[in-house]
């Protein structure tokens, strides 16, 4: 018989079992609670708004007089204009900045300062970006209260998000692969373009989805840079007056006549669907790239 403590009774009860079970239940509630809330909210909006949506609602200009006619065509097109320009500006600049910081820039104290500054910029309230856009684009660059001024403001707003998520994606590419390419006599750019970027693209696209989703829902900065609350026409160029879906929804909800709330609900459904559509496209793109990665 060997000395020492008695053998462990493996059919016994180990310590902390009840605590662990309790913790798992807390986690379950933490998942279910927000889901129920979301379904309840969306369900309410859809129940109220879905019946209002028809081709006319999508393709007509809004009506101030009659809640049962008119639609959201100018706001829908305004949002699309804003999103396309915002993406076209913020993605190349943001990904470029991330590439420089991760692949080219040396790790210096200045680099750390830049990193902290970008992280902080991502947390700045959107109304502040609106003020910046008003000063910089609307007044100083004299773009006026136009689509391009609004889109550039939104681009500034999402830029830190794009930069941070792109850097994160670039960091997941192993250094051993960069060394392999450099060891073959490839330049930094050749390494980045053909080895690093193909592997980072799915992650970069995920960040782009987040950024675009944020931009499409923003209202506050648009109010400041002069999106109009009521307009009968879709934008016809970069220098056109515009409104956006969230602006139109806000305008309807603040209308004293309650029947306009139905329009607001319908507008929310359209906004959610647009968002859903954009995200699906981005996710499809991401999966395509991922498949090529083996």
């Amino acid at each position, binding site marked *: 018989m060997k000395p020492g403590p008695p053998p462990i009774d493996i059919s016994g009860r180990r310590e902390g079992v009840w605590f662990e079970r309790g913790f798992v239940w807390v986690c379950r509630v933490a998942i279910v609670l927000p889901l129920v809330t979301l379904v309840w909210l969306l369900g309410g909006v859809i129940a109220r708004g879905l019946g209002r949506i028809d081709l006319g609602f999508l393709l007509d200009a809004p009506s101030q007089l009659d809640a049962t006619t008119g639609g959201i065509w100018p706001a829908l097109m305004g949002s699309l204009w804003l999103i396309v320009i915002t993406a076209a500006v913020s993605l190349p600049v943001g990904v470029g900045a991330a590439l420089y910081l991760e692949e080219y820039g040396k790790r210096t104290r200045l680099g750390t300062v830049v990193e902290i500054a970008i992280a902080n910029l991502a947390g700045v309230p959107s109304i502040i970006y609106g003020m910046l856009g008003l000063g910089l684009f609307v007044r100083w660059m004299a773009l006026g209260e136009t689509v391009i001024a609004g889109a550039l403001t939104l681009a500034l707003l999402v830029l830190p998000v794009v930069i941070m998520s792109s850097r994160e994606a670039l960091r997941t590419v192993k250094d051993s692969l960069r060394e392999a390419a450099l060891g073959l*006599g*490839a330049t930094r750019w050749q390494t980045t373009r053909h080895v690093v970027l193909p592997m980072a693209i799915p992650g970069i696209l995920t960040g782009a989805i987040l950024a675009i989703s944020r931009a499409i829902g923003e209202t506050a900065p648009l109010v400041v840079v002069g999106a109009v609350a009521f307009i009968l026409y879709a934008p016809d160029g970069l220098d056109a007056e515009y409104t956006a879906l969230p602006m139109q929804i806000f305008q309807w909800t603040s209308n004293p006549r309650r029947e306009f709330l139905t329009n607001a609900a319908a507008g929310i459904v359209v906004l959610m669907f647009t968002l859903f559509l954009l995200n699906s496209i981005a996710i499809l793109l991401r999966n395509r790239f991922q498949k090529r990665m*083996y």
Partner: protein
Amino acid sequence: MTLPSPPPTTEPAMKIRVSGLKAWFGTHEVLKGIDLPIPAREVTAIIGPSGCGKSTFIRCLNRMHELVTGARSEGQVLLDDTDVYAPEVDPVLLRRRVGMVFQKPNPFPSMSIRENVLAGLRLTKRMGGRKPAEVCEKALRQAALWDEVKDKLDKPGTSLSGGQQQRLCIARTLAVDPEVVLMDEPCSALDPIATARIEDLLHDLRRDYTIIIVTHNLQQATRVSNRTGFFLQGELVEFDLTDKIFTSPQDRRTEDYITGKFG
């Protein structure tokens, strides 16, 4: 009493001559002044305990060392007659003549076997008039991998076994036609059979290439190399023909290391 040394056989031409090479990571001096001539078309093994600076040493030869943040080096490394640390030398071009195989197999995950082999030429736009199929087959044959992969060249490089991946990396390095091949413990992540295949390969390769291999497997050094350098704490303790190092080392520390007293 020492025996008179035998008359020197014809000394081989030197491919690389290192003198006074020092290297740092931050303030930590990893190499403390290395002088080492490396003959052309031979296999030179670098041995020594972990942390002795042997990997850093070969990474200084193709200027990969300086890519690490905070790393720097000084001294002279002559490739043929050009100092690779001369200001007019472009490290990118240098690495096309001095290729490298790393410790862990690192095929490009986004590329097929064929694309991996051709990566060096394609990335640097040097395919020229060469036929991709021929370049690919030649490099894979040199790396003794052709027969195993010839029917699945379009499969991902990462689908191969560890030993095959490492030979794929060797093929990738050879495809750019370097003069010198640096190998940083190329077998440390491989099983004995895969290791034996790579050692066989080295015997064939030294006809055409100057090879410098870092290893902490002493048997491997005796099997594959013509000459061996023993590194200890950033210094080159002894450098001689492999046979002499392992049968009659001149330095006590070399003897202690190869007989397993430390390391």
